[in-house]
């Protein structure tokens, strides 16, 4: 009876493991028991007239001086992110003795240093930034009532303790200032004008919250920004505070600056009542964070000092990481914004203010990060907007499904792209793009360049299908995994100089198949098939699932080989096939783990059930209950521990697993434990073999290009079905009998035959 308890213990363990995760508090932007540093001092001077040219390059170094302490120290700082106006082109952190962690707390990026104890340390954070001057954007003259919500939702309208947009005096004042105006541009302008006229204050004359500043009509940039935010919100315009830095050469600057962003229905526009900027900002403004937040938070009682050192820089110095005095950036590599740890699924973007073109880059693990970094940097130089979608998985199925998900979530970007460059190890990237057809996305004049190992006929079919579905200008297919950089050169030449793809490909010695108006075409007798696939895609039939079905006969033939030619004995004829399909969704390693766990527990439970003497049907039902409990438990475990493949378990075929358990038990009774284990091993072996075949790149495209392959498998099955040869394992079995067969036979039974 003991083994019956096992599944419940497993479930209990899962539940217990899940509890701490539920009770953990969600991480706040800054923990509240720490010292908060909002700003050092205020700048009162009105901003200088915007500097020309409209592009500023700066190097900024934040230095945090942490005194020696025996206590655990934590320092958190909000650091800038790239947005449409500013680009962070390089980051470097030096913090001897500290652990460093960077995380995105939407919409901000938070850097955090921790140490158990520390000697006196200077922590530095270097930034290379480029700031573009925003031209004064006209505010739409729409009625406020019809203003769409900002993506952040209600947060941009909610009052806070220091931005009291719901205080009666704020509401009354907003009402009075706005008067009868209902249009967005009038409301924002009148409220901006009102707060811009406040008397500046260098040292905070009192509490700098919205109500106090409104009453005194005097305040710091922070106080006035809070007031404007509160007034805008009270008038029904979503608004948020921005904390930033005014850039200008300085050795040690503590002062930060605050301004406001108001939502105008499609974008946030900057308003700086203290600096006197309406709907525009000069290149000397660097936004550090959004929201009414402290810039720095550190452990209470530890006296952390900070300062920004700012230098104007040149494009070469910033973008090419040219070594100068201190070398704030690593040399030899162009800086690109990149998270601390490389994730399997990532999206990177570089935006320029006036792009000449935009490019979507789809890559997998076969493209090294250095190459994509370089392309992003070059795109930047050539004023090309670039979006990079990467999914790094060895498993083809995972790669394809994640790339497809990335494509789907970036549809608007892809729709606008002039060029889509796909570089995957095989045809996974192309399949991901076929998802565009499902959504009826037309790429119009855009070019698609796809590189990856695929056979020419398959590439022709797949490329024609993509061409037919998305109607791009051209589809260029490059067989074999070519280095991405020549392809990029090819694309860039096409985009910037208008060089025809075919010509450029010849120049770079690339074996390219160009599909388009004048390019290669599918043979006319194959076109109906292509149109059929296109109809399927348009009807939302997932092509990958369809091809998986078409691959099944091929692996079924594989099973026939394993049984008839090799002589493997497995549980159920096609059980291994279905188990292998399950492996695809979980990945091989986890698939094997799950299989062994489930079958192991199942066999133990089956042995326990044997004593209850149940009928076969109810026994099987109980086994299914066990299998689902284990699968559910593993799924929860995956959720708690963050193991993705375990979450895909739900597709693991439960009934098949129950049958494997039952077959195991049956063979254990009939053939003995050793034989049953041997059969389990054979089943697993065959399942793994099938998995490796199904996950093969070329196969999917093969059945798509030549569905008649199925007839060949049938012919093959007929041939094997007729085969009478000795199975491979039978050679082993009979070998010994033949070896010392006849000699002994004569010795033991000398010719005593009744007749000779």
């Amino acid at each position, binding site marked *: 009876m003991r083994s019956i308890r096992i599944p419940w213990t497993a479930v209990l363990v899962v539940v217990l493991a899940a509890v701490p995760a539920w009770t953990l508090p969600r991480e706040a932007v800054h923990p509240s028991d720490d010292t908060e540093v909002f700003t050092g001092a205020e700048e009162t001077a009105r901003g200088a007239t915007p500097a020309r040219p409209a592009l500023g390059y700066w190097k900024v170094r934040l230095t945090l001086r942490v005194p020696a302490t025996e206590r655990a120290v934590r320092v958190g700082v909000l650091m800038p992110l790239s947005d449409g106006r500013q680009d962070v082109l390089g980051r470097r952190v030096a913090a001897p003795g500290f652990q460093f962690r960077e995380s995105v707390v939407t919409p901000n990026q938070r850097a955090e240093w921790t140490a158990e104890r520390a000697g006196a340390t200077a922590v530095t954070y270097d930034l290379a930034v480029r700031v573009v001057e925003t031209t004064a954007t006209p505010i739409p003259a729409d009625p406020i009532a019809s203003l769409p919500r900002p993506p952040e939702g209600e947060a941009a309208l909610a009052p806070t303790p220091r931005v009291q947009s719901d205080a009666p005096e704020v509401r009354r004042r907003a009402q009075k200032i706005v008067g009868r105006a209902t249009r967005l541009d009038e409301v924002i302008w009148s409220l901006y004008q009102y707060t811009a006229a406040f008397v500046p204050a260098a040292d905070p004359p009192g509490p700098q919250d919205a109500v106090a500043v409104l009453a005194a009509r005097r305040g710091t940039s922070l106080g006035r920004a809070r007031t404007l935010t509160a007034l805008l919100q009270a008038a029904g315009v979503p608004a948020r505070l921005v904390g930033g830095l005014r850039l200008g050469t300085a050795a040690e600057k503590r002062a930060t600056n605050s301004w406001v962003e108001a939502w105008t229905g499609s974008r946030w526009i900057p308003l700086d009542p203290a600096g006197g900027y309406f709907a525009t900002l000069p290149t000397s403004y660097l936004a550090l964070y959004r929201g009414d937040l402290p810039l720095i938070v550190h452990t209470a009682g530890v006296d952390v000092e900070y300062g920004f050192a700012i230098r104007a820089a040149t494009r070469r110095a910033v973008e090419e990481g040219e070594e100068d005095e201190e070398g704030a950036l690593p040399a030899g590599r162009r800086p690109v914004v990149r998270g601390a740890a490389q994730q399997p699924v990532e999206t990177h973007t570089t935006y320029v203010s006036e792009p000449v073109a935009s490019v979507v880059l789809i890559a997998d693990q076969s493209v090294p990060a250095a190459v994509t970094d370089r392309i992003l940097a070059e795109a930047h130089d050539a004023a090309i907007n670039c979006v990079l979608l990467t999914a790094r998985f060895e498993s083809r199925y995972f790669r394809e499904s994640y790339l497809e998900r990335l494509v789907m979530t970036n549809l608007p970007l892809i729709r606008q792209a002039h060029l889509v460059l796909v570089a995957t190890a095989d045809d996974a990237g192309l399949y991901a793009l076929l998802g565009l057809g499902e959504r009826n996305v037309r790429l119009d004049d855009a070019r698609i360049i796809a590189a990856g190992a695929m056979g020419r006929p398959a590439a022709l079919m797949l490329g024609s299908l993509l061409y037919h579905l998305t109607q791009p200008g051209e589809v260029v297919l490059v067989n074999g995994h070519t280095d991405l950089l020549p392809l990029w050169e090819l694309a860039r030449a096409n985009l910037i100089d208008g060089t025809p793809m075919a010509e450029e490909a010849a120049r770079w010695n690339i074996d390219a198949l160009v599909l388009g108006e004048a390019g290669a075409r599918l043979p006319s007798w194959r076109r109906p098939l292509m149109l059929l696939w296109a109809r399927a895609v348009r009807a939302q039939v997932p092509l990958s699932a369809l091809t998986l079905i078409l691959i099944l006969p091929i692996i079924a033939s594989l099973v026939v080989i394993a049984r008839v030619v090799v002589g493997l004995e497995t549980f159920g004829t096609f059980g291994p096939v279905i188990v292998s399909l399950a492996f695809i969704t979980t990945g091989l390693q986890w698939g094997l783990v799950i299989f062994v766990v489930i079958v192991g527990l199942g066999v133990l439970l089956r042995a326990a059930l044997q004593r209850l*003497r149940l009928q076969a049907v109810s026994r099987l039902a109980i086994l299914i209950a066990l299998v689902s409990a284990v699968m559910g438990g593993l799924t929860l475990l995956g959720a708690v521990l963050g193991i993705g493949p375990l979450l895909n378990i739900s597709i693991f075929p439960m009934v098949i697993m129950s049958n494997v358990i039952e077959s195991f038990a049956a063979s254990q009774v009939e053939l003995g434990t050793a034989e049953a284990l041997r059969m389990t091993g054979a089943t697993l072996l065959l399942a793994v073999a099938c998995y490796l075949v199904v996950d093969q790149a070329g196969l999917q495209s093969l059945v798509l290009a030549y569905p008649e392959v199925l007839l060949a498998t049938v012919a093959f099955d007929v041939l094997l079905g007729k085969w009478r040869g000795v199975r491979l394992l039978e*050679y082993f079995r009979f070998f010994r009998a*033949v070896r010392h067969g006849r000699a002994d036979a004569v010795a033991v039974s000398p010719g005593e035959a009744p007749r000779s």
Partner: protein
Amino acid sequence: MIGALRRVRSEMLGLNRRNHAYLFAYNPRAGYRVVDDKQATKSALDAGGVAVPALRDVCDAQWRVRGVMARLAAEREFVLKPARGAGGAGIVVVVDRQDERFVKASGAMLRARDLAAHACDVLAGTYSSGGRTDRLLVEELVVPEPVLGALSWRGVPDIRVLVFRGVPVLAMVRLPTRRSDGRANLHLGGVGVGVDLTTGRTTFGVRGGRPVSDHPDLGRPLSGIEVPAWHDVLSLAVRAADAVRLGFLGVDVVLDRRRGPLVLELNARPGLGIQLANRRGLRPLLERLAAQSVPGDVSARVALGQALAYDCGSSR
């Protein structure tokens, strides 16, 4: 090495060839239905005048279990078998009585209600393949005669005779061991010993695919033992094959101390391990037999089988 592999290919019968050339060609579907049900086999053999362990009782519905148990209360020794069981599962052998209790072959005691519960399980299909409902057969107990009985660890040894077109081709004795738990099945760990068809003498032992010379539990040598009533065993196997009209089958014969050779079971998909115990391949025998005409008389066919075995054995 290469020569040996070539001989495997040319002389040994593999599963593929067994299925194609012999099962499909010589065994009609109807024959399987008879052979896969022990009760049907028994009546077919009875009708053909082949000696079988007597069928004492049949229970084919749960509500009849009580009646059957009441009749069993008077019996001292018997065997309970599921009609569609495979591999010896679900068989209970009762060898004695102690007061109200039944003594199993292993020495364990059973109460009447344990037997009734077992009967219900059998009827529910616990031991039948695919979980189909089943019937319970009550059979006469077979007591092994001493010659082969002395070579068995508990249980009953049997003689598997492979019969093709009504002619015996190869034979082996199957001996229960401790590992096979008193059952004679080779894949459970029983020992197979080849028998020279002409002399009825045992030749080589094999267990789990490896040669053995002595019984692993009893230590007695396996070869050179003369199987009693050898000619009767062979002619009984031939008549059993005639009774079910299967062209290629394995006949399991037991030697009862009181009644002599009895046919215990038939197998329409005989395993190929018999080639290991005899250290010779089936193909030369079967192919010669397939090409020649077969006499009608039973003893002539036994003689033909013996002659073939001798010819093929000495031809090389």
